[in-house]
């Protein structure tokens, strides 16, 4: 999952970035509003963390711009202003959550995960597509209640596919959500991850959980328990 952090205070920004990376996110950072707005509207990010008090372009303006462009990824705002007036204003502008500084990284990443699965209609922190179960908080995967050991990248690919179960995810999108912008990409890597995932999840080759649509991407095909399907 690719997250954008827009925060002008360097220590906080760096701290959040490194903590979120540790908990498995791909992180983009912006130090001011203008840069933040550019990344927020031009890059294929999955979720954004935006500080409200930014130089040049305020956090509120970024949110309004993002929503005006029809982008619907979840946005979490950070602020020192602990007033309902601000909360209401921000949430009405299109933000999805609101955190008052100081922020604890664990709380932030928990909120981000909750928002990500919620926007895909998941209400529990476990994605249950029998026989595959993926626990978002523990970052563990089970098949028939048996834990499967995955590498960090394999996990991220599976998480992304399962989160958007039923939807076609392009290879570029997967790459984008795995790597930061400036890293060298090799789209073959995705194919390798997919192949390994198929082997690990489907040892007998009977389940066929991941479907390849030639030229378009991949799709997670198993039926999932998803009470509030939005998309």
């Amino acid at each position, binding site marked *: 999952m690719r997250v954008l952090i827009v925060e002008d*205070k360097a220590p906080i920004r760096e701290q959040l970035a490194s903590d979120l990376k540790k908990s498995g996110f791909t992180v983009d950072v912006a130090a001011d509003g203008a840069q933040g707005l550019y990344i927020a509207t031009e890059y294929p990010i999955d979720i954004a963390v935006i500080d409200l*008090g930014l130089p040049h372009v305020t956090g509120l303006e970024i949110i309004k711009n993002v929503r005006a462009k029809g982008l619907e990824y979840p946005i979490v705002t950070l602020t020192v202003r602990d007033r*309902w007036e601000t909360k209401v204003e921000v949430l009405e502008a299109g933000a999805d959550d609101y955190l008052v500084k100081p922020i*604890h990284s664990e709380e932030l990443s928990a909120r981000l995960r909750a928002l990500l699965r919620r926007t895909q209609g998941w209400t529990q922190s476990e994605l249950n597509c029998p026989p595959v179960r993926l626990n978002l908080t523990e970052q563990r995967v089970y098949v028939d209640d048996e834990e499967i050991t995955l590498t960090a990248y394999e996990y991220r690919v599976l998480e992304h596919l399962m989160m958007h179960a039923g939807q076609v995810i392009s290879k570029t999108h997967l790459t984008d959500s795995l790597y930061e912008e400036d890293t060298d990409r090799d789209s073959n890597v995705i194919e390798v991850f997919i192949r390994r995932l198929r082997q690990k999840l489907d040892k007998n080759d009977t389940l066929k959980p991941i479907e390849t649509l030639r030229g378009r991407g991949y799709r997670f095909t198993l039926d999932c328990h998803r009470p509030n399907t939005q998309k």
Partner: protein
Amino acid sequence: MMGSLRSRQLVSGFTIIVVGILILGAMLRLNIYQRKTDAIISELESTSYNLLGFIEFQDGKFQISEDNRKEAEVFINARQLAQSNNKERFAYIWSMDEQKVVWSTVDNELDKESATSLFALFNFEEIANKPRTEPYTSPKAQSMDSVPPPGSNEAPAPYMVAAQKFAFNLTPGQGSDERSEFIFIVASSTKDVGREISDLIMVFAILFFVSVILILIAQLASSFWVVAPIRDFEEEVRDIENGNKELITNEYPDELVPIKNTINALIGHEKGQKQRYKDSLDDLAHSLKTPLAAIQSHLEGDHFHDIPPDHPGLAGVASEMEYMQEIISRQLRKAMVTTDNAIIMAQPIRPLLTRLANTMKKVHRDKDFEIRINVDEYSKCRMDSEDLMELFGNLLNNACKFCDKLVEVSAYRDNDMLVVDIDDDGMGFPSENPSKLLKRGIREDSKTEGQGIGLAVSTEIVSAVNGRIELLVSPYVGARVRLHLPV
């Protein structure tokens, strides 16, 4: 009495009118009297002059010659000189030697008694001794009082008298040089003049009285008209006080415009002051909290990687910082609460509640519950909008957090307060001593960070505007927070 502008206006107007009318009346009376006496004087003088022309002295007595008798009669009748029954108008010649009337318009030969019954007598000595300033001019009329005959109980009466003194030798050519003195009197009673004038004065007095009443009525009417803008102004200021308006916007007469501008400026100043205060507090919050958050990031960061997280020094610093943050936010909330302020607009709480309800659905999106807003748009309360948002935000958030399926907000008017109930169907307040929840710092739900002060902040906001907050049991057996807010 002088408390109101209208009474001041009425009293001053009334005084001026009454004094003015009194002065005018006195002047008018003098003027009328002057004119009236002037008319009588000139009439008497001409009568005296003309009548004397008819009279001749023949055979030792005064008489009107045969030739002129007819003419003289007409003249006497025309001048009403023969009607002496009331001693009103008459003419006679008084002989100073004989001390009797020797000729009159009524009869020539009169004894003393009938003369006194027909005519008023005057102080002839005085007339006779009066030095003649202009010897050959026509007689001068002047007012004088009659001299009642001795022994009678008549009072002296006012007369206008044209008296002419003349003297000649009764027996010319007999060697005697003695000249007899006569006084020719033409008199008209001015008793009637006085009465006429007082009649006239009476008429005028009635006219004046009526006009005073009319003027007063007019004044009263005009005072209503004049005072009307002031009353409108007062009404508008009261509207602002009641929070129905923000500024004085109506058009007023020129005299009220400076007051209007001053009041508007004052309101603007007051608002600006409040805004500046809030802004500077906000800045303070920002400038204090941001470095604190940064310090916290440093502490959690890689620079302290080698130090175990339960290092006593580090843990102490961290907990002190958390304490500092809590103090800052608590004091800021407290300071942000707007105190009772006359110039706050009353605003409907429904739009605000709807906004908050939408926000709450977003904040508590994991929960499946309903928020019912049973508040109409007439439910208004006079509080700062930010405070209202904070108050209802905190209370609704608590309700949403603790409810099972339902949060309900209802409002009704009770005398001069707006009563708002925030109900939920959760577990309700602890039965023992729920009021301690209203005190700051006691967390209702220790699991959720920073939310326990919600009720305490609400209490502060409500008590700052002289409202009241109660913790009750809702009809859904959950918690009910009842607010009494100023209208």
